Each structure stands twice: as C-alpha cells, then as structure tokens.
C-alpha cells in the first residue's frame, strides 16, 4: 500500500494535479459569478420562450468566453498588473478616467440587479425584502472587509458548489434527453426578432466586462508565476466550461416545463414560481435557492472588484487591509456601490425590471471597448514578451471579438427599442 502512495506521490500527473489545485480559483470563481441574477433571468426566459431551440448557442458562447478569459489570465501572468493598470499606463489618464466612470455606473446597475435578485429569491421563501436586502448587504460588507483573499476565495469556491442546484432542478424537470442532445449539436437559426434578441441577450449576459477586470485582478493578487501558467489556463478553461453548463441546465429546466406548458415569464422569480406546479416544490425551491446564492455571490464580488479597479486605474491607494484615512476613495466607492445598490431595491415601486435591462445595456456598451483595449494590449511585444497572441490565435480572436461586438451592439439596439 505504501509503495502505491509513494509512486503516486512521485508521479508527474499527481504533482501536476496538486499544482493545479494550488492555482485553482480565479478562473472558476469568475466564470461562476457570471451566472448572476441577470444571467439566470436571461437563461430562464430563453428556455421558457424558445424551448430547446437556443441550446446550440451555448457551445459557441463557451468558446468565445474561453478565448476572452484566457487572454486576461495571460496578461495577468505576463505583466503582473491588473487590466486598469495596463490601460492607464498605455493609454493615459484621460481615457482611463472616462472608462472608469462608465465602469462605475454600469457596475452599479449590475449591483442593483444582484440585490434585486436576492430580494426576489428570498421572497419565494416568504422572507420580506426589508429583512433580506439589508442583511445581505451587511453580510457582503463583513465577508469582504474582514476576510483575507485566501479565506474569501475558499468561501467563494464553496459557493460554486451550490450551482449544482440548477443541475438537479434541470434533471428533476424530466426533459426529453434525446431532443436536448439533438438541439445542442444542431444549430438551427430562427429568423425572427424575438429569437435574435434572446440570442444576443445570452451572449451579452455570459461575457460581461467586469469579468475581465476581476479575473485579471485575482490572478495578480494570487501571484501566480509564469511557470504555473499552464495550470492556470486549465482553471480558466474549466470555469468557462462549467458556467455555460449551469446555464444549459437552467435552459433545460425551463424548456422542459414552462415552454411545454406555454407559461410566459419575465424574471427569474416568475420562473421559479411557475416551476412549482409543473416540476414540484423541490425543483422550485432549488431554483430559487440557486438564484439567491448566485445573486449574493455576485453582490459580494462586484462592488469590491469595481472599487479596486477604479483605484488602480486612478492611482489611489486601495485594499481592504487599509484604514479609511489611508484609502478614502477606495472605501467611498465600495460603500456607495453597496448602499446605493441595496438601497434602491427597497424603494417601493422602483422599476427593477428596467434596471435589469439597463445593466445589460450598460454591459453591452462597455464590452466592445474593453475587448478592443485587450486586443491592443495583448499584441504589445514590449509588454507581453513571449506571451503575445500568435498569428493564428489573433485571427480567431479578432473574429470572436468582432462577432461579440456586433451581437452586443444588436443587443443594445434591441434593449433600447424594448425599453
């Protein structure tokens, strides 16, 4: 027995696995936060309105997500700097300032959407939003300001496990697996407005601009060395596969029940409520529990990542371990994000649905700019050294980025149209 363990310990595969575990985190967490309140709402609607007809799109979306996220991770390892840092140093303070201003507004809308998600999911469990929202705001505050990166990362990695709830509720909905499989590998495009809007929505919610900043910052924070890059890439790709996989099960769950019964839904809460008579109490509970975890998870990460990235770009001191007098801008930004983000949800008759739309539009407007900055940065030889894009990869990346830009522009158009 001992020799077995010994040979295991000495084997290369095992060593690689341990190395992988040590760098694991940034990629998987970022991709999972991606399935936030807005994301889940979009996926539920895609399933409820179009059945399995949009499942195929998740495959190219996954590939696009991998390409974008991998570039960020590579930049982080090669330069040791965050995305905001790089933009500031290469494009100057003017560009950075306006970009950061837009990021602040867009991410603020995103945070509002997350807290709205917290309120909605807990209302299904009959918890009033006047209790749930302030409590979760306090929770987020304490978790992040009192934790170290290491301990917070552990909590987040653990939270990722809860996305299994969606897989289970997908299975509990008893879909027709044969059709599901066929639809996934057979792209079939429907030429109508509603379908296109939904398709664009799926892309826009899966590839959000704040993800690039967050991923790059957390890789830098973790201090992953160039030698460990191949393990990090595995983590990033793994995350980019898991996130659309969860989305896949959400679409399946809604398609197998709501689409079949012809129920129309507008929000994730609608979907959870509508699931109850069709798939049973447990499926509905699992669904809303997943929504709660997703929302609070994203609500913990977004304000912090925004505050860090803005301070980084503007050259202000930042860090949760600093005192208020040392980093006033950082704490102000963080506080405003949480207080405003949670506060508006409590305003009676506040148009939350429109906020959700606005956050999607904002993401869409911002993403093309971020992607263009990234493409320009990653091809700078003096910055990236041997880590610049290869010619082949550049072609693929350009095609992906142009497609994403076109689609998000379409989404912005549609959202303004439907607004």
């Amino acid at each position: 027995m001992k020799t077995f363990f010994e040979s295991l310990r000495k084997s290369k595969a095992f060593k690689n696995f341990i190395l992988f575990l040590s760098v694991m985190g940034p990629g998987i967490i970022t991709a999972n936060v991606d399935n936030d309140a807005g994301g889940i709402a979009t996926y539920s609607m895609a399933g409820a309105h179009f059945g399995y007809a949009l499942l195929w799109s998740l495959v190219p979306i996954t590939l696009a997500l991998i390409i974008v996220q991998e570039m960020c991770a590579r930049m982080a390892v090669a330069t040791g700097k965050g995305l905001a840092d790089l933009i500031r140093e290469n494009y100057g303070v003017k560009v950075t300032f306006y970009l950061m201003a837009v990021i602040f507004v867009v991410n603020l809308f995103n945070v509002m959407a997350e807290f709205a998600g917290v309120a909605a999911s807990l209302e299904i469990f009959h918890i009033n939003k006047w209790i749930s929202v302030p409590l979760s705001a306090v929770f987020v505050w304490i978790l992040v300001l009192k934790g170290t990166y290491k301990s917070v990362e552990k909590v987040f990695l653990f939270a990722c496990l809860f996305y299994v709830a969606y897989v289970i509720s997908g299975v509990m909905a008893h879909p027709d697996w044969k059709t599901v499989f066929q639809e996934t590998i057979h792209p079939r495009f429907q030429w109508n407005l509603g379908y296109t809007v939904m398709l664009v929505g799926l892309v826009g919610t899966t590839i959000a601009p704040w993800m690039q900043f967050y991923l790059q910052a957390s890789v830098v924070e973790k201090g992953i060395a160039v030698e460990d890059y191949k393990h990090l890439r595995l983590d990033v790709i793994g995350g980019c596969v898991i996130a659309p996989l969860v989305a896949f099960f959400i679409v399946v769950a809604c398609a197998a029940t709501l689409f079949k019964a012809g129920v129309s839904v507008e929000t994730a809460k609608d979907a959870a409520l509508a699931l109850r008579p069709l798939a049973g109490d447990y499926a509905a509970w699992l669904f809303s529990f997943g929504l709660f975890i997703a929302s609070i998870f994203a609500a913990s990460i977004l304000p912090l990542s925004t505050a860090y990235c803005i301070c980084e770009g503007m050259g202000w001191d930042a860090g949760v371990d600093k005192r208020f007098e040392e980093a006033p801008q950082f704490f102000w930004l963080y506080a405003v994000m949480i207080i405003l983000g949670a506060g508006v949800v409590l305003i009676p008759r506040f148009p939350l649905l429109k906020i959700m739309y606005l956050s999607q539009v904002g993401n869409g407007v911002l993403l093309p700019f971020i992607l263009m900055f990234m493409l320009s940065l990653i091809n700078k030889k003096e910055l990236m050294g041997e880590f610049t894009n290869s010619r082949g990869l550049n072609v693929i990346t350009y095609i992906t980025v142009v497609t994403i830009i076109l689609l998000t522009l379409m989404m912005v158009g549609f959202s303004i149209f439907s607004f």
Partner: protein
Amino acid sequence: MENKMKFFLYFSEILGRDVLDDKNQVVGKLCDMVLRLNNEVFPKAESIIVKKGLLRKEFANILLEDFQEVDGELKLKITRDQIKFQRQPFVSDFSIGQHVLDQQVVDIHDKKVVRVNDVHLLKVDNQLYLAHVDVGLRGIVRRLEWTKWVDVLVRYVSPKSPYLTQEELVSWKNTHVLNIGRTKNVVRLGVGREKLARIPPTALAEIMVDLDIFEKFSLFKVLNADMQRKVFTDLPVQEQEAIICQMEDQEAAILLEHIPADEATDLLLTLPKDKTRTWMRLMQSETSKNLQKLLGFSKDSAGGLMTTEYLCLGKDALVKDALQKIKDNVDYPGSIFYIYVVDDQHHLLGTTSFRRFINAPPQMPLAETCYPQQVFVRTDDGMEEVALLLERYKFSAIPVLNEEEVLQGVITSDDVLEELISLTWTKYKDQL
C-alpha cells in the same frame, strides 16, 4: 502667479498642443519629451517627439535647440522640410511619456509607490528640466482639462478646501523610476543607488511587495550587493522566488551563498529542480554541499527538519569514552544529551542518554546502557509522527534513519516546535 509661470511648466500644458513651424503653420502635436539619462539631479530635456496624422500616424524627433520657445506656444526655428517624419514610434531610453507619466514610481520620502498624474518642468535659460512629479488629485483634474470648472465648483462648495491650494508634488530627488530597463537593460546607477540607500531594507522590502515583477527586479538591480541581501531576506518566499528567477545564474548563486542557509534552503525547495541544480554547481563547494544535504528532503518531512549535528560512537565504545566525548564537545551546537551507537556502516545500533550512563562503571560497554527499545523515525516521515514520538517517549531528540537503517541526523524538539508555531500562526492569520 505671472512670475511662477516663467519658471515652472506642467507637462500636461504642452502635451497634445500644436507645434508650429517658422511660418506659424501646424506641423503636428507634441506627444512625448525625451530626457537625458545621466547622473544629474534633474534630468534635462533633449528633444520633443511630434506626432501627426490620425489613421496613418507619423512621428518626428525634434531637438529642443530647434524650438524658439517651449511655453505658451510651441514654435520652431526650423522650416517644415527640415523635419523628418517616420512611421515607427521612437523608442528612447528615458522619456516622460514612456517612463514617467501615468507610471508608478517610488516616493523615497514617504516610502511608498505612487502613480504619476503630471510632470512639473523647470525652465531655466530656455532649457527644460524634470523637477517634480505630481501625484495629487489636482494633477488628474489638470490632465482632464477640468481645472477651471472644478476650481469654481470647489470654491463655491467649500472655499477653504485643501484641494484648491495643495499641490502634491514629489521632488525628482526623491523619486525612483521603476520601469526603466524594462525594454532595454538601462540601469541608472549612482543616483538611484544613493537615493534608495536612504530607505531602510525592511521598508524597501515592503515597497517591493506592491510592485509588479518587472518593477521589482528593476528596483532590486539598482541596489548594491549588501543592500540586495538585506532586502532579499526580508521578502516573503514567493517574492524571493520571483526575483531570483529573473537573475543571471551567476548572480543568483552568489546571492544564495550570502543569505542564511535555512532561508536559502526554503527558497530552493520551492524552485524548479533544474534551476536549483544549475545554481548549486555555481556555488562554492562548501556551501552547496551543506545545502545539498538539507535539500534532499521535503520541507515538513523528518529529513527536512533534522540537523546533521549529533554525537555518535562506535559499537565497541565504553562508558568512559562517552563521558570524554561529552566533555570534548561542551561547545557543540547540537544536542550533547544523547549519544548514538553505530556500526562501521553507520547503522544505528542503539541510543543512550547522559542520564543512563553517567553513574555506570567507566569500563562498561556503552551499548549496554542503551534504551531497551529503538525509537526512531524515517526521513520521509511527517512532522506529526515526529511530534507524537517525541511526546510519547519524552525525548528531547529523536534519530532519523533512512531505508537502509543508516543514521542520517537527529530532530530536536525545538525544531518541531518552531515548525508547529509557524504553522499555527499561518492558520491563525487565515482566520483573521
């Protein structure tokens, strides 16, 4: 105010401004300023880089002598034909745009890393010198060209705000540029070294943690050998690793030789094997032999914990030999409480302690005083096992054997304690 304008000039006031030729025609826009890299306190401006074209950008490098004035207006003495434009951007050893503006620099006075928002130029006899860097909010506002509006607004809201009067300028004497030498291997010696020598090593180590790897290394390279060693030992292992991997093999070997052996071992253990091997070959044989032995074992195994300092005697030794051995080794750094009895091949035959033979007849074979039971650990046993055995048998040291029963070294209880304390401390820190 009028007077002050004459001597000082912000770089943001001329950045992006039109450059006019002798006939007052626009040639292009100012996009960068090249400075002379030397040991003067304030670097002198050498030339100005002018950019023209929007999609098809072209650049020209114009010497400062060719300007009539650089202040309110950027006017040339020369004609348009004398300017040579090229498609490639100019890469210089030291320029404001590439190395100072928007970059991070070390503020030596406040011992921290700051980002440069604007550059303050000193104007003497139509020559420009880099005098200060602006790291404050006013600098950002000035770059955004909002100064007028923001000033009016702030004066209206709170007329006594420090924002209105306080310029956060850091003298060039007190700054250290970081990313020089990132593209080329230009190192500013002399001045940089003198400036940095004013910061204590611990503070320097703290500053370095905040920098990215290239900046870290460029800062490190400027330090003299003695300072390098001091700063290096103050850095966490992760940072040490990042720095040493950037160094030339010969430099790395010399550095490793001069830092404490336990620090070197801890560092070498985290590094790839081939690197370790190369460096060891370059080290003096004495140092590398010592490190080699300690390196063969994983850090938290018995082999990694043990020391090679212990007392042993052959199997025919008598009690009086043992007493003599202890007397001879009173100053021995290892534990002298235990004596290990070994055969010719250094196999462990038994362990005896001072307490067991001090009252025994001197002519008695030492082997007879040994503990009836052999207690030992293997080189690859974990620390927990070592701790358990030490506690169970109330030993203060335990022998370490390899697979062939050959005595390798001993572990004393304080070695284990040290390791446990640091482990507990890490866990405790995590909970905070």
